[in-house]
């Protein structure tokens, strides 16, 4: 039963991403061509809500569901992996218009063709795992 809350959060995420059309290839194209504020507005609003929420969490007044203080690990320092990895991800995002969340959401919504993208993304993840020690980080 403890998994119900994760399921419900996932449902909310899937509904919002679909109804905001953030899962739409068209919206991603429009974003990269600066022809609509929509996607930028979504990301900026989510980040503003996130910054405020995390600052409140960090003040320590709100404990997590287990009654523990909330801590969030900092990302490891680095540049190459973040920049080059980000660049490759961006090339894919601009081409097929789907980041990992929407890949799953779209399959759930009945776009079976996106299964090909999922297959590709699993192959890509596996290739990274194979090459990891040879790549600059």
């Amino acid at each position: 039963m403890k998994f119900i809350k994760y399921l419900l959060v996932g449902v909310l995420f899937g509904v919002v991403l679909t109804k905001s059309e953030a899962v739409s290839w068209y919206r991603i194209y429009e974003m990269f061509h600066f022809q609509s504020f929509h996607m930028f507005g979504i990301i900026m609003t989510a980040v503003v809500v996130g910054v405020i929420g995390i600052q409140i969490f960090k003040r320590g007044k709100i404990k997590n569901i287990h009654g523990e203080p909330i801590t969030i690990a900092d990302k490891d320092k680095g540049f190459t992996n973040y920049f080059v990895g980000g660049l490759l991800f961006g090339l894919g995002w601009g081409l097929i218009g789907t980041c990992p969340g929407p890949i799953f959401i779209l399959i759930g919504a009945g776009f079976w063709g996106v299964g090909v993208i999922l297959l590709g993304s699993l192959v890509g993840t596996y290739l990274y795992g194979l090459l990891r020690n040879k790549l600059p980080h």
Partner: protein
Amino acid sequence: MFNIYGTWPWYISGFLIGTVMLLLIFFGKNFGMSSNLRTMCSIMGAGKTAEFFRFDWKAQRWNLTVVFGAMIGGWLAVTFLTDPTKADTVVLNPQTITELHQLNIDEPNGKLLPDALTSAEALKDTKILAILLIGGVLVGFGTRYAGGCTSGHAISGLSNLQLPSLIAVIGFFIGGLIMSWLLLPLIF
């Protein structure tokens, strides 16, 4: 007026996405969708050939549950919350439509994805299959190399004021701009 059947406005959508992330932090977890791709590789036995996939994937079952929920959410949204008689969806900038015509990509008319990419007919085309597959590989490889995707870096990382996430997000946009402006016209 907010019409639940139409395109949800950015401020409502962004607020709810921020809330999803905060809820997961409140549950003692974190918001990151691409980790699930690594978990799935592990489940399928990738650990036999790469050390990166040798970890306790069962500890990630909560995140697989989130993804499963997201799939249900996608289905609910297109089945019960989309109705062309009550509201239009995917209404684009007219300039975008003109550019799509030049790329021979069909305009949305309410669809989330172009038929040119994911219709049954398109999927018979080797070139389209290659585009979907290569795009998927770039997303899967890039996101793991960068240690996160839009949810892990752009939303979670920036919300926690992480410089590495800002570097990754700048990379996302440079990559996306190169693809969208320079490469897409050559591909389509």
